[in-house]
């Protein structure tokens, strides 16, 4: 009897697993075909000398790309840009969310105002930035009234300032909305108890709000990191494939290698970038685990 029940359980478990597999299969096949397989192809290209000869050179391409001056410059600029823009995007959007979470006049109008940049098409954004930051643009005209000489904003060491401004302008609104949602999810009772215990605003913010917001902060940070790479689109439209060296990013390097049909350098650079991103995101997860673990418990 026991044996029969055991067999019945086994069969039911197997049926359930098959059922689950059948439902998961289309998604898994799709992920395999459109993500895993192309990534395998990228790895293959990074290990051969060129697509014609297809001779395996193993890690020679990696050594060559890591030694390349253009790649090193692009990598350095991308890291600097990400590590400046990412924290600014997180901190400023959090401050905005805290401000707009209070009962202030015209609160919903301010929220709409900060969300509007997300709806503006890229071509319009590029046009606006060109009008503002061109050598003969409105910013230089304004500064000229104070006797400041013209600055070539997009072709000088000031170019990263423009790109960071562009990035923040585009992304603050969405990050702010995510933080507003996160703030709404913090249990009110904790704040009330803290107030009763004579905790000040800073103590409430640091010990309660930040802890409960840690998953949101992680999510916004990762999103900002990903969006910091997407800013290439606007930079490319503003400055073409070979910009001034201060805003030459990894995607410029990869885009130009594609145009040169240098698939092996392109693939190698993409893999190196992926590995760095995996490390950064892994570190972020570890930090979030540490700060947010008592909240999750």
């Amino acid at each position, binding site marked *: 009897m026991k044996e029969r029940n055991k067999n019945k359980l086994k069969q039911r478990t197997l049926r359930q697993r098959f059922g689950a597999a059948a439902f998961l299969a289309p998604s898994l096949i799709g992920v395999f075909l459109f993500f895993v397989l192309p990534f395998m192809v990228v790895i293959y290209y990074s290990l051969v*000398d*060129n*697509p*014609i*000869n297809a001779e395996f050179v193993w890690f020679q391409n990696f050594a060559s790309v890591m030694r*390349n*001056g*253009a790649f090193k*410059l692009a990598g350095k600029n991308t890291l600097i840009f990400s590590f400046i823009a990412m924290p600014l995007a997180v901190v400023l959007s959090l401050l905005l969310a805290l401000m707009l979470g209070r009962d202030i006049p015209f609160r919903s109008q301010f929220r709409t105002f900060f969300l509007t940049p997300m709806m503006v098409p890229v071509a319009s954004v590029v046009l606006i930035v060109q009008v503002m930051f061109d*050598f*003969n643009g409105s910013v230089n005209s304004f500064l000229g009234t104070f006797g400041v000489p013209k600055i*070539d904003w997009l*072709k*000088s060491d000031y170019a990263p300032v423009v790109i960071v401004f562009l990035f923040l302008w585009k992304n603050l609104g969405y990050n702010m909305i995510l933080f507003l949602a996160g703030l709404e999810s913090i249990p009110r009772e904790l704040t009330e108890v803290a107030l009763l215990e004579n905790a000040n605003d800073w103590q409430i913010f640091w010990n309660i709000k930040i802890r409960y917001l840690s998953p949101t902060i992680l999510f916004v940070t990762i999103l900002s990191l990903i969006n910091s790479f997407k800013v290439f689109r606007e930079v490319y439209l503003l400055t*073409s*494939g*070979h*910009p*001034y*060296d201060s805003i*030459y990013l990894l995607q410029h*390097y990869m885009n*130009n*290698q594609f145009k*040169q*049909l240098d*698939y092996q350098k392109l693939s190698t650079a993409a893999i190196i970038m992926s590995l760095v991103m995996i490390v950064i995101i892994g570190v972020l997860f570890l930090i979030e685990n540490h700060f947010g673990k008592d909240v999750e418990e």
Partner: protein
Amino acid sequence: MELVTINKRAITPENQKKVIKMACIGLDYSVKEKIVDFNKYNSDYRIQVEDYYDKYSDWETGYSQLQIDATQEAFDIVCSDSSQGLFLAEKGLFTDVYPYMKNDSDISFEDLNESVLKAYEKDGKLYYVIPSISINTVIGSKKTLGDMTSWTIDDMARFRKENPDRMFFNYGTQLQVAEVLMSFSMNDFVDFEKGNCNFETDEFKELLEIAKTFPKEIDYENYQEWESVMSGDIMFMGAIISGYDEISMYPQLFNGEVTFIGYPSSDGKGNTFFASRMYGVCENSQYKDAAWDFLKTLYSDDYQENIYNGFPVNKKVFENRLKEAVKESVYKDENGTERRSAKGSWTYDDITLYLYNPTEEEAKVLRGLYESVDSVIDYDSEFMGLILEEADAYFSGQKSFEEVSKVIQSRANIYIAEKR
């Protein structure tokens, strides 16, 4: 005209011809004829042409797609042109044709113009079959140039100072003159081998200052090129010579003897050549030998003697055709007076110029040009574009040379570093 008999037969796997796929952007009529002959008389293979110009109706789009497809698809022959230089060859797309050329008894390798072959070599290998070339030069009046056979940028600066109101190089705006001067003196500023460049130099400043003396724009509506040359408004004329009779045009334009001085350059090699069509055998092709069997017909005497657009790469054929042209250059009229026999004429801007077979003197000049040209312009349009984009700000007076050269230096450094 030819009469042929066609025999119908069933196609079986045994008798079906193997297909040699050829990719191109436009094809010369003479090569099409050779393809038809090959397909007619070769019992084992036939050539199938994929013309990317017909497919995309735009040269640039067609060529970009051809480049991508050539690295992915199994073509056997790819037809390229000089403007792309060795780009596809550097990707490892083509096989070295020197072993074929040197070991094939149907080709008289020693008769081929070695300067042309050497100019397109890479690491001692030749990746293209080049049937013909055209010569790129600048022409000026002998009265102006005297005994000069070449000139430098300094010489050009001197001529410009003495003639501030005359045009140089027919379409001579600031950017066009800068582009021309850059094309021929790029080695003075860039070393692609070592990955260095330096645009923050007095030489580059001098080049931009010379270009700046030219007009910003030309009113093309009222621009009459030949009339301007004849009247002396255009002092030097850029030209491409691809026919034996073309050399006779220029004394008519300049109202007297002319010198084919070439473009200003630091090494005195201002006359260059280019191949309008180059044919490569793909490294991955299964039918390399058959592809070579077709391409070698472009080196045959029959083909070389009938090239109508460009000069044959076979030196003997070039010389024979030149001698034939000289023999036919004069005739006697009803009064017994020797006159030049016009082979044709070109009419432009209401001016008609007659094309004559070359005289002995003109033949000597043409022979000298053919034998002396040994370099091609290594023209990278993207690299040139980024330099000219910044130079424009200097020409319009918005930025100083120091500001412009700094930006050019930065962008050029990145461009060169990427290619290493």
